[in-house]
């Protein structure tokens, strides 16, 4: 058990006194600093349904297919997203609306139909999704100068999200719970269809 002697207390008291005598400006509330580029990137994913929902759908699909598919997606998706983002920052211009619609439609339909994709196909899908969405993110981040650090934060958040969702879905054994995941997929595809309607509506 830890015992505090009188000399320990004196040293601790001296350090505390020294710190109190030299106050520095506290940035604890982050109103002036923001969260910092890494955390801004992580939060961007969580607050952007157009990126969050497709990533969530891919994790559901990987979880339905099993552990090997989940592991592959866990590493392929964040890595490709990071790579796409770097390309987007370096040279990009473009809009993400069409990307979102296609991602929601394709991934939602695959989850709803419980598509039995091979490991190679799913990895290719993860890489494609990561590259395209990462590219759009990189283009969007370029004017703000948050760049690479934000992308690292985003990729880290993506890794955690994929790990949590895959780990949850991969354990589901009862048919009703797997079917609930497929219902979620149909909701995602339906949102994509409505989104397509919105896009056409806005352009007409």
């Amino acid at each position, binding site marked *: 058990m830890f015992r505090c002697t009188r000399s320990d207390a004196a040293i601790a008291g001296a350090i505390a006194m020294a710190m109190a005598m030299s106050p520095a400006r506290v940035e604890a509330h982050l109103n002036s600093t923001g969260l910092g580029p890494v955390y801004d990137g992580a939060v961007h994913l969580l607050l952007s349904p157009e990126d969050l929902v497709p990533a969530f759908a891919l994790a559901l699909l990987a979880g339905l297919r099993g552990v090997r598919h989940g592991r592959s997606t866990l590493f392929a998706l964040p890595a490709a997203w990071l790579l796409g983002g770097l390309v987007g920052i370096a040279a990009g211009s473009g809009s993400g609306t069409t990307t979102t619609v296609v991602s929601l439609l394709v991934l939602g339909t695959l989850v709803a139909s419980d598509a039995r994709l091979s490991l190679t196909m799913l990895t290719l899908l993860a890489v494609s999704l990561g590259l395209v969405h990462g590219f759009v993110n990189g283009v969007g981040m370029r004017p703000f100068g948050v760049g690479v650090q934000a992308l690292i934060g985003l990729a880290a958040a993506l890794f955690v999200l994929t790990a949590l969702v895959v780990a949850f879905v991969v354990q589901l054994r009862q048919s009703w719970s797997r*079917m609930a995941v*497929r219902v979620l997929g149909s909701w995602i*595809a*339906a949102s994509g*269809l*409505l989104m397509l309607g*919105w896009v056409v509506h806005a352009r*007409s």
Partner: protein
Amino acid sequence: MRTPEKLLRRLLPLLLATLWWTQTLFAHAQHGESASFRTGFQHPVSGFDHVLAMMAVGLWGAQLGAPAIWLLPVAFPMVMAMGGMLGLMGVPLPGTEIGIAASAILLGSAVMLELRPPHVVAAAVVTFFAIFHGYAHGAELPPGQNGLVYSMGFVIATGCLHAIGISVGVIHRWSWGQTLLRTAGGAVAGAGAFFMWRALY
């Protein structure tokens, strides 16, 4: 051992209650998005005809049992969204209100008579009417909303109505429950007849 299924069972009522209780969150600058989700979520539950038909889908699914109990809620949102897309695109679909009223009459009657057609036929009937429900909502979407968040709210609310129908339909395992479900089906069909009368006159 706590399985994911047990966790789901415990969390689902809480999740549904939270979704039902949606409030606008102004914690960050993009407050328009939470307003869009709330608007989208409230839209399907604001029309009594839609609510009755959606719950009838769930009730009928529960009566038919597996795989219809899952097939109908998977197929319905996708076809309904297709109808919503047509509405947003401005594609004309005459007789929308009549189609919605007819859906309440037919689905209510199916529950009341406990009809058991082949699953493909049941899915075809439900998805046919889903187009009318989706179209009506698509044509009425308010301007200035975030499309994706609104759509998600809209689809999730419809899914919750199905879930309520399926949950209520669990009473089908008891004889008194079967009678109660048939009575509920009759009530839905009666309400559908009223909606039809209102649509025609």
